[in-house]
């Protein structure tokens, strides 16, 4: 269960953001919709513990995350959060499989090849496991990064603009994938996007302005 209340953040350039409170239960999905400049990415980075809020609280399973020091935040992020960034990036010298297992390694969890293979099968890129990530198409890369976000069975999955570069058909597919996968591991799914196509697909949503 993710509960966020009264988050506020300001950049040095004195752009101030304050965000509405919201919550998202385990297995549920939440859509955060907003046009560019409304602080979508800032909010995502706050939730991802990459930025520290000036005030407000972020609770995951009743544990307070907002006030953590960077080191502790890194640890919490690695073990409780799965993040899918807007642009898929990988360690380019490693294969797809190694990139997946890297998530285990960096979070200091047991390396699970089985988990990687299972995810690759259910997301449909099993035959790509031994390839370099640079050889993958955009859609394939995105599926791999979804799999990577799921490697450590996180409590919350954060997705930044997961559909912005996709056509309608693939947009539906990815959203279904995300919803199904997060449901299956009982994680709260938070999607941050400006993509209006997703508006009607989620009942639980917040619109930033």
């Amino acid at each position: 269960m993710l509960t966020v209340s009264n988050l506020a953040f300001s950049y040095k350039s004195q752009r101030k953001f304050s965000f509405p409170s919201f919550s998202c239960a385990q297995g549920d999905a939440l859509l955060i919709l907003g046009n560019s400049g409304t602080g979508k990415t800032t909010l995502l980075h706050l939730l991802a513990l990459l930025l520290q809020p000036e005030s407000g609280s972020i609770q995951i399973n009743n544990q307070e995350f907002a006030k953590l020091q960077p080191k502790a935040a890194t640890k919490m992020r690695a073990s409780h959060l799965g993040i899918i960034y807007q642009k898929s990036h990988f360690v380019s010298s490693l294969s797809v499989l190694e990139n997946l297992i890297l998530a285990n390694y960096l979070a200091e969890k047991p390396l699970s090849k089985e988990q990687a293979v299972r995810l690759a099968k259910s997301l449909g890129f099993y035959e790509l496991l031994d390839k370099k990530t640079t050889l993958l198409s955009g859609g394939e890369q995105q599926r791999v990064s979804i799999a990577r976000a799921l490697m450590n069975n996180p409590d919350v999955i954060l997705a930044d603009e997961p559909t912005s570069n996709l056509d309608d058909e693939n947009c539906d597919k990815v959203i279904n994938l995300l919803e199904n996968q997060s449901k299956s591991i009982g994680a709260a799914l938070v999607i941050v996007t400006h993509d209006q196509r997703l508006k009607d697909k989620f009942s639980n949503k917040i619109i930033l302005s």
Partner: protein
Amino acid sequence: MLLKISWKNILDKKLNSFLCILLMTLGIAIISLLLLLGKQLQDKFTKNISGIDMVIGAKGSPLQLILSSVYQIDNPTGNVYLSDIQEIAQNPLVKEMIPLSMGDNYLGYRIVGTNKKYLEHFKANIETGILFKKDLDVILGAQVALNTDLKIGDSFASAHGLDAAGEVHDHTKYKVVGILAFNNSVIDNLVLTSLSSIWNIHEHNEEMENSEDKVAEHPENEEDVDMDKREITSALIKFRSPMGLMSMPRNINQNSKLQAALPSIEVNRLFELLGIGVDGLQILAAVIMLISGISVFVSLYNSLKERKYEMALMLSMGASRTRLFLMLLLEGVLLALFGFMAGIVLSRIGIILISNQISKKFHFDVSQMSIQTGEIYLFAGALAIGILAAALPSINIYKLNISRTLAEE
């Protein structure tokens, strides 16, 4: 896993890595080759010198006297009377005097007239045959026997002078009676005979010339003159005590027609002269190593710019900055390590090639192919360059702003 990522990164940029390793290899190989050659040379030089305290010969350059008499590489300074030398050898400070007489060669190998003491001085053992007894008996150094295919019982005519192109004394022939075992000293490249053999050959010559010119000024007392005026080229002196070093050389140089030279001093001077060349090459090699370091630096710096997002990603996934820093350091260290190993191997190959080229003149001691102490410092230097070159660009990992980097396109 960290090692694996470093390794994969090196493989991922094959050309860059190859360039870094190549430069490191070259630098290491040159320095290591110089170390090996220097050690071999120094060993040879000091082995040949050991025990010889002073050399007496005709006036001229002291270095030339040492080079010609001890190392048998330069031309002699001239001839001196044996009687003069013997007079000096009477001095109670002198423990031993070894006369040397040269002037002829066989196929470029010097024929040196001397006595048994010369062999004892080098602790040279006769492998087959016996020591020279009669005039015109010779024994061959091991390298000479190997390269000329002369065997015991063979005879050959010597050539005048110290290079193979000299006039041939074809009316008298030397006879091989013995062959020496490898001694790893200058004696390996010499043909040794008795002093009287040398006198004999040249007397014969003079007689022939004299008879041709029909000039024989003092035929009646020639024998007497010969006994007093026998000439040799130089003599090696060993002192009973270091006191000899203090007084004798100065005395000889000031009060006689002879010259005394001290091998230790002249060789030090020679090494100082050689040292300039060796130092120059070492600086060159060090510069190459440094360039290798710079190329590691540039390569990592460029790739880090490309991999900035990758680093931010790994940081966000739980890696600590120190861990990533170590991973990048490891890349530099691995490159330096490969360069070092390849360099050491290359220098050994170089030594083998060089020794094959010059083995006719220079018997090479293969037992010195092991790692030199200097190479341990070299290893530390290579490692330091690798670490430093990797650390400079990698330090930026501590300044990387994860959020901003990930938010960038």
